[in-house]
């Protein structure tokens, strides 16, 4: 037990002393992006604690409070820092809950895309030959359609198939599936490429000489060595997935308005933009932009930090 603890502690110390952490500290952009991302993610997770109202619970808001502008404006109310929407919901609370939904959809859809893409990429790269050709042609075909189109298609199909009462409840899962399935190709391709490089390295040949099973070699030898690029793709695609979710919700095919995500909030606000109620749409939009921007910057930094050629 103590040996494991020591190993772990040693590992953490090595990591903190390592090049990645050093390059992170050297890059101001990365530090700021990480800070912003961290704040946004943790406030989304802690939304129930931070928010003054629960936007999902109609009993906590009142039509009387509707259409307050942000508190620093003339008609503002200090109870609603970022104002309220047309139904009297507190915008700040709505955004906190909304980014929670958006990030959850983004996170789980990327997890799903990884769960599909990594095994396909590993097998395709390791086995090669006809299997690889078939899998990669499928990937090519899918890649020639925009991700949003595929997500729309799946969403539409699900709506057609699912009975009405299930539709609302399952909407978020359908969304995760739709976005995930439209992103697996990127993981599969990256993993396949790295896997083809790794499998020709001598440590893999040594394992083959020992008669190790191909699955053992893929999982224990190759996979740990290709997690770097996968992590980079995952980070950048997380931002993309959040955007896709927002787009779908904006188009009205995403999560229902009862559980609004950032995209839903923007759509709702969009209707009031010309009535002068700009805060309903601008604030969720700004949060979306800042979130995707900082996650992307973080991904860019990670890509450079993991690329030994640039170091």
């Amino acid at each position: 037990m103590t040996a494991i603890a020591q190993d772990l502690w040693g590992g953490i110390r090595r990591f903190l002393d390592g090049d990645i952490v050093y390059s992170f500290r050297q890059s101001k952009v990365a530090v700021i992006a990480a800070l912003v991302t961290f704040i946004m993610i943790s406030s989304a997770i802690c939304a129930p604690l931070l928010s003054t109202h629960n936007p999902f619970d109609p009993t906590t808001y009142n039509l009387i409070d509707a259409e307050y502008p942000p508190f620093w404006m003339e008609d503002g109310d200090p109870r609603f820092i970022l104002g309220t929407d047309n139904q009297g919901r507190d915008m700040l609370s709505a955004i906190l809950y909304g980014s929670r939904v958006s990030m959850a959809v983004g996170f789980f859809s990327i997890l799903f895309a990884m769960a599909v893409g990594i095994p396909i990429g590993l097998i395709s790269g390791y086995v090669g030959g006809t299997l690889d050709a078939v899998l990669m042609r499928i990937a090519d075909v899918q890649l020639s359609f925009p991700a949003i189109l595929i997500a729309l298609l799946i969403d539409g199909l699900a709506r057609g198939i699912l009975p009405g009462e299930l539709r609302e409840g399952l909407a978020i899962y359908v969304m995760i599936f739709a976005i995930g399935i439209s992103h697996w190709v990127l993981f599969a391709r990256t993993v396949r490429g790295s896997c083809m490089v790794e499998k020709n390295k001598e440590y893999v040949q040594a394992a083959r000489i020992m008669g190790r099973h191909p699955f053992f070699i893929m999982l224990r030898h190759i996979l740990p060595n290709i997690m770097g690029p996968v992590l980079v793709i995952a980070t950048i695609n997380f931002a993309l997935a959040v955007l896709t979710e927002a787009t779908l919700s904006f188009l009205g095919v995403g999560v229902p308005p009862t559980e609004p995500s950032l995209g839903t909030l923007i759509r709702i606000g969009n209707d009031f933009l010309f009535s002068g109620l700009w805060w309903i749409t601008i604030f969720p939009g700004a949060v979306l932009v800042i979130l995707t921007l900082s996650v992307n910057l973080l991904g860019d930094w990670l890509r450079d930090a993991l690329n030994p050629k640039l170091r």
Partner: protein
Amino acid sequence: MHDATLRAPAASAVHEPVVKAEGLSRHFDVSAPWLNRVIERSPRLILKAVEDVSFAIDKGKTFSLVGESGCGKSTVARVIVGLYPPTRGRVYFEGTDLQSTHGRAEASRMRHRMQMIFQDPFASLNPRWRVRDIIAEPIRAFGLLDGKEETERRVDELLELVGLAASDGAQYPHEFSGGQRQRISIARALASQPDFLICDEPTSALDVSVQAQILNLMKELQREFGLTYLFISHNLAVVYHVSDTVGVMYLGRLVETGPAKEVFSRPQHPYTRMLLDAIPDLDMTGRERTPVAGEIGNPINPPSGCAFHPRCPFAADRCRTEIPRPITRAGGHRIACHGIEENRIPDAVPPYQPGAGSVA
């Protein structure tokens, strides 16, 4: 001694070599993808990396394959160890045909007795694994020891055997220098207690002073455990130092085999002579190395007849059309050359005399 290793297969019943390769060939299909072939009407391209190679290695001896890049020596190593199946020919391990070992159990029983040491000490160890797990992998893969403690003790033993400390097992490969990594590689290879080691350019990525350490270690281990080595190298001096028998390869074929001293002091095949002449002279005798005109042919489309004929100063018409069969000379010295067979090539001026003093 060496006679038995090189005589025709019929005689081998008397003395069973540890490893025997018979008519080994390995071809690679390097043609363009099917669609391109159909549209561009390009033909199939077959790379004959190894063609009709036969040799045998006695227990406790070192057989070296030497040649320039692209001659197929590394492919031979990989076919013997089972990474590639041979296109033609057979590999025997202690008389058992390795291709006929059906079933994983039998194959694995044979496999753990042959291991491989690789060229690149930076690619041959998984960078994400601790050294002790790397060394223990063959033990675990073949299920040789049960019990965690027993395995750990064995790993510590192995680390000390190759000149590292038992405590080094907790480190990761990147914390070691090239020479130390090669020692880890050797420890891993020895973990399954093999009888036969295939060493593919084990020192060519190392500095000379480290190379000496590794070569000495390998010789020491050979004496201690009676190991048999198949040694692959492009460095003739290293090959001379370690080998009992050498085989010289050119474009996939063995052109000359024989006892190391014999081949190096009385090289027969014009290619062997050329290689020996091209080695830089450290004794400062003032001998200029003789560069040979021309470059190695293309293995996808090798020259007709004897593949060496475009560079050979003794090439005749027969060399351009007919592939030479190996002939055996005294002492188990085999040469595949029409000129030698017809006795029209003068004896070489021996550039090296065995037994000359050492540098130090």
